[in-house]
C-alpha cells in the first residue's frame, strides 16, 4: 500500500542514476569510441576533426613491446595474488580459527596495513630498498656483505610485488575467517567423533564448505591485481628501470598523461576491462562457487 504510489521513485532514483550516467556509463562508452580515433588533444578544438583509425590502436598492442611487459607483469601479479595473498590469508585464517584466545588481536593487527594508503606504504618500502643506507642494505652490511641495488631490472618486479601482496593479505584473511566462523561446529564434532584428524577436517570439511567465499576472494584478488597503480607508481615511477615494472595501470597513465598518447591510453584502458571480464569468467568457471550450496 505504502509503495503503490510511484511518484517518489523519481526523487529517490534520479540523482544517483544521473551521477552514474555522467561519470560511469557515458565516459565508459566514450572511452571505447575514443580508442578508434586519433585524438590530438583531450578536448576537440573547434573546426578540428579527429581521424578515424579503426583498429590501428588495437593492432599497435601487438607490436608494442612495452605493453607486452605490462600485460605480462599484470598477469604475473594475478598469479602471485591468488597464490600468496589468498593462500597466506587462508592459512592464517585456518590457524586463527583453531585458537581460542587472541583471535581479535590477530584480526586487528593483520587488517591494519589495509587502512594505510598505498602511497605511504610505497614510500616506506622505498626507504627499505634504498641503495645508500636503505634498511635492507644496512642488514647486508651488518652481515658483512656488499650492498645490492634492490630495484635493478632483475629484482624490481619482485620487490614491487612484495608490498603489493603483503599489504592486502589481511583483507582476504578477514573475509575467509568470517566464512570459517560461519561453519557450524557440529560438523567438526561429528567428524572428530568419527576419528577425523584436525588436518583432514580442514581438507574435507573446511575447504569444500568455504568454496563460495574462496571464489569471492580469488575474484577480488585477480581483479585487484589488474588495477594496481599506487605502489608501483611510488616505488618505481614510470616503470623504472627501463620500463620493466610497468603494469597495465601505470602504463595507461604514462601513455595518456605523460606522453599524451590519449587514444592509445583509452585502448589500454579498454584492454584492462576486457582482461578483467575474462579472468573473472575463468575464475567462476573453474571454481563453480554455487556448486553444492
Amino acid at each position, binding site marked *: 500500500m*505504502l509503495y503503490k504510489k510511484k511518484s*517518489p521513485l523519481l526523487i529517490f*532514483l534520479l540523482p*544517483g*542514476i544521473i*551521477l552514474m550516467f*555522467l*561519470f*560511469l*556509463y557515458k*565516459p*565508459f562508452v566514450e572511452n571505447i569510441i575514443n580508442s578508434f580515433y586519433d585524438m590530438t588533444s*583531450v*578536448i576537440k578544438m573547434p573546426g578540428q576533426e579527429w581521424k578515424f583509425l579503426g583498429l590501428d590502436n588495437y593492432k599497435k598492442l601487438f607490436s608494442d613491446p612495452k605493453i607486452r611487459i605490462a600485460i605480462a607483469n599484470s598477469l604475473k601479479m594475478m598469479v602471485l595474488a591468488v597464490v600468496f595473498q589468498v593462500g*597466506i590469508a587462508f592459512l*592464517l585464517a585456518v590457524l586463527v580459527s583453531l*585458537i*581460542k584466545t*587472541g583471535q581479535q588481536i590477530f584480526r586487528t*593487527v*593483520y*587488517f*591494519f596495513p589495509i*587502512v*594505510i*594508503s*598505498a*602511497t*605511504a*606504504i610505497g*614510500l*616506506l*618500502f622505498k*626507504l627499505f630498498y*634504498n641503495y*645508500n*643506507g636503505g634498511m635492507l642494505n*644496512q642488514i647486508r652490511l651488518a652481515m658483512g656483505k656488499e650492498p645490492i641495488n634492490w630495484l635493478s631490472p632483475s629484482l624490481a618486479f619482485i620487490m614491487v610485488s612484495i608490498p603489493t601482496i603483503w599489504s592486502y593479505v589481511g583483507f582476504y584473511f*578477514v*573475509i575467509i575467517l*568470517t*566464512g570459517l566462523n560461519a561453519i557450524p561446529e557440529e560438523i*567438526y564434532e561429528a*567428524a*572428530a567423533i568419527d576419528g577425523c584428524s*584436525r588436518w583432514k*577436517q580442514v581438507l574435507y570439511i573446511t575447504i569444500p564448505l568455504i568454496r563460495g567465499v574462496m571464489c569471492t576472494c580469488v575474484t577480488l584478488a585477480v581483479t585487484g591485481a589488474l588495477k594496481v*597503480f*599506487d605502489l608501483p*607508481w*611510488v616505488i618505481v615511477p614510470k616503470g623504472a628501470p627501463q620500463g620493466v615494472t610497468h603494469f597495465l595501470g601505470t602504463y595507461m*597513465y604514462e601513455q*595518456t*598523461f605523460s606522453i599524451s598518447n*590519449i587514444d592509445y*591510453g583509452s585502448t*589500454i*584502458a579498454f584492454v584492462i*576491462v576486457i582482461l*578483467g571480464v575474462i579472468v573473472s569468467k575463468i575464475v567462476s568457471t573453474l571454481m563453480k562457487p554455487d556448486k553444492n550450496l
Partner: protein
Amino acid sequence: MAAISKNKRKLKISNGIIYLVLSLWAITTIFPFVWIINNSFKPSREVINHSFSLPSQFTMQNYINAFDKLNILAAYKNSFLISGSVTIGVMVLASMMAFAMTRYQFRGKEILNSLIMASLMFPVYSTIIPVFKMMSKASLLNHPISVILPQMAGNLSFAVVVMIGYLRGIPLEMEEAAYMEGANVRKVFIKIIVPLTKPALATVAIFCFLWSYNDLFTQLIMIRRRTQYPICALLNEISSKYGTDYGLMAASIAIIIIPVILVYILLQKNIIKGLTAGAIKG
C-alpha cells in the same frame, strides 16, 4: 574451534606452533610502521647508518622541517574536504537508491540492477579520460569537485549493493505500521529506514572514506596545483623531491599515518565487522 578437544597434550604443542606462525606474520605487519616512527625522530645521517637502534639523540627537527617545507595541514584539509564529501554523498544517494530498489516495483528494475552490477567491474582507468575531458571543459580541474564527483560515482555501485543486501533483510511491518499511522514515504525513509540501516551505512562510510582518501590515481590526474594537493598527491611529490632526506621522509610518512592509526584503533571493530557484512552479502 571447540571441536578439537581430542588430545590435550598434543594440542598444546601444536598450539605453540600456531601462535608462533601467527605472531611471525603479525610482526611483518607491525614492524615497518614501528621502524618508520622510530626513525622519524633521528637525523637523516643516523637513519642511514643505524636505522634499527633507538634514536641516540631524540630530535623533532624532521617534524618541524616537514611542517615548514610541506603544506601538510593544507593537504589534510583538502583530503578531508574531498573524502568527507564523497562519503556523505555516497551514503545519501546509495540509501535512497537501495530503498527505491528494494521497496518499489517498477519497469526497468532488472535493467537498472544489472547496470549497477556491471559498473562494479568498471575500473577507474576505463572512465578517467572522458571524465578528465569533461572536467577541463568545465574548467573544474584543480577544484575538489573534480575528484569528488568521479569518486562518488565510482563508489556508489558498491554502496548500493551493500545497502540492497541489508535492506532486503529488514521486514516491511514497521514501515506499514508507520503508514497506517499516517506517515508518508519521505517520513518512513528518514525516520525508519535510515536509523535501521545504520550498520550498513557505517560499512559504506568507512570504505568510501578509506578508498577516497587513499586513491592516488584520481588525485594525480585531477589536481595539478600544489596548494590543492590532497594527502596522497603530496606524499607522492615528497618522494621525488626530498627522496634523499630520509629523516624528513620518515617524519612525513609518520605524520600521514599516525591519524589513520589512531582512527583505526578506535574504530577497528566497526571496520572489520563492516567489511565482512559487505563482502559476504555483496
